[in-house]
């Protein structure tokens, strides 16, 4: 029974097929400014941006990500990308292009097909050299991207949900639980030289806090992790061909 359940386990993790090869060259990681949206969902449909909470969550995300990366054996470069973007609009655009390229790559990584746990480390996607500018300027070997969405419902919206729940209960006898807040995070580690998407994970939680980041990053393999299911040198057929170019 357990093996059946395990066999059916799906994951949001997408890992590069050569993750362990790439990570050998990754010592320093720079964290890109997290893209954060925190809003109050209101009854009128005019959702309010919660700017104070957004700023707080932004700094918490960076601290949590830093801690997790260090825990995994990486070094985090202290480079204020936000300040550089402020000074140099061309650099700001380059950073935005990295986000744009990731958005496009996401379609490849999450194409509607579910991925089983044992299939997660077979990906080969890349943002291409667009990421070079950040890595070069920060002196980093890889770039960590963080995307966060959080919400809380206004009192009016909560009241509406309760009313809807009551109606549903009256008609069906079923009491539906409705969340009043929630969050979702996406974490992506990108190779600074080639733009290869080394690792991505996405997690959601029924709370409005940055903690969901730690949960998502707890699955990131560390620098000392050994590749699973990789064949030994003896197993490999003799191959004299030069290595393939990076996928971009």
């Amino acid at each position, binding site marked *: 029974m357990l093996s059946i359940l395990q066999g059916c386990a799906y994951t949001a993790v997408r890992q590069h097929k050569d993750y362990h090869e790439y990570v050998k060259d990754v010592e320093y990681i720079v964290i890109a400014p997290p893209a954060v949206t925190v809003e109050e969902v209101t009854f009128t449909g005019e959702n309010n941006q919660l700017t104070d909470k957004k700023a707080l969550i932004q700094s918490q995300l960076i601290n949590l990500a830093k801690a997790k990366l260090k825990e995994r054996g990486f070094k985090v470069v202290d480079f204020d990308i936000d300040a550089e973007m402020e000074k140099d*609009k061309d650099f700001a655009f380059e950073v935005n292009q990295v986000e744009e*390229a990731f958005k*496009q790559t996401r379609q490849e990584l999450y194409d509607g097909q579910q991925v089983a746990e044992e299939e997660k480390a077979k990906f080969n996607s890349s943002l291409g050299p667009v990421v070079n500018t950040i890595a*070069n300027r920060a002196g980093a070997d890889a770039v960590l991207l963080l995307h966060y969405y959080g919400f809380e419902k206004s009192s009016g919206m909560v009241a*509406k*949900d309760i009313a809807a729940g009551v109606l549903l209960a009256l008609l069906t006898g079923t009491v539906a639980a409705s969340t009043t807040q929630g969050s979702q995070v996406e974490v992506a580690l990108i190779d600074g030289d080639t733009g290869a998407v080394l690792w991505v994970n996405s997690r959601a939680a029924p709370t409005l806090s940055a903690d969901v980041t730690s949960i998502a990053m707890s699955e990131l393999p560390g620098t000392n992790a050994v590749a699973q299911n990789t064949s030994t040198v003896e197993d490999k057929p003799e191959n004299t*061909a030069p290595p393939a170019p990076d*996928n971009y």
Partner: protein
Amino acid sequence: MLQRFTTRHLRGAGALLLFVLLYGCAGTAGNVQPLTENSHDYGATETELSLLSKSTAAHQELEKKGLILSDEFINEFVRQTGARITPGIYGEQIKIQFYVLKDSTVNAMAFPNGNIYINVGLLARLHNEAQLAHVLSHEVAHVVQRHSLKRAVNRSSTIVAAHITDLLLFGTSIGYLPYLSSLSGFSQEQELESDQYALKYMYNASYDTAESVNVFKILQETSAAESIKGSIYSSHPTNKLRIQQSEELIQQQYSTQAHALQDQEQFLRVQRAIERLNLELQLTSRKYQMTIQGAERAIANNSNDPWIWYYKAEAYRLMAKNPKSAALERAWIKGESQSAEKYEQEIQAQTQELLNKASETLAEGVRLAGNIPQFHRCRGLIAYDLADMAVAKEELTKYLQSGSDLKDKLFIERQLKKLGG
């Protein structure tokens, strides 16, 4: 019991819904005066202040992301064209300002604070200054007529109606989603009204009003994938209606003057600069087939820019490298999202052909311009994909030696390392 409750409840709810929907139709948007009237009370209501504050925040976000084009020549041209068509506005609180956005989608937008944005993707599709004047006039009309405020006033009533519907649908939100709209989303009636005012503004500024019809024709040719879903620049069914309305109005009131204002030389300079940027942006967005189409349009317009050939060659090369992305794009263009897998197989089978096309296209660029550094880069990467290691090494080395501030230095160094260089 359940049946009795449901019937009685639904009857009452139906009456309530009817009331709310009728109430929703009787909005107060009719009291909103355009900015060309002395009696306008711009910024006097909380709704409008909220829209203005959101506009400011959105503009700051665009600036922060470096999305606002800083090319002074292009900006000045757009600003001057915009200034010519902008009507007199009462009051100092509002200024109409024009910006070009580094975005390859075919779109333009107006914020209620008077900021007008035209995307590089739309600018690249236009043929002359009068067409640009039409696009800017249309957006200015949204601001002058305060369409965002009118929509917001109407929306508050309709959204309440939507929530009531939502309650009756037991929280499935089926009736709620269509009511969501963005800061610069307008109704079809408002779009048609803006088209009418656009003709007036163009006429007053002595632009050739017939070019407005040509803009609609360009938009009709625009692939759905090039524009933003829901944008007026993608609403193909409405273009026929827009053409018809404009043709009638031109005939009745705004017949083109013989001395129509045009500065084609300046416009072509703008377009040459924009074309290159647009192709670069499309490549980053993995719109390979659209890059090829854009390059072919530029070439058909007698562009002698060797970079156009470079971007076209890169599009072929990247299609071969990223068949999955290319397949997703093809499925998107054709509106067949289910066919992506089939297209991926097709594109994979064409790898060699695509790389050959990339080589041939690049050769045409070399014939025009000699060897600019990026040509070495492209040729080196094609050679690597074709497993011609000696050529790959030689070309990529030449590229690296061409300058110290190359944006993709790390990427090329890594490829050379793999090649044993």
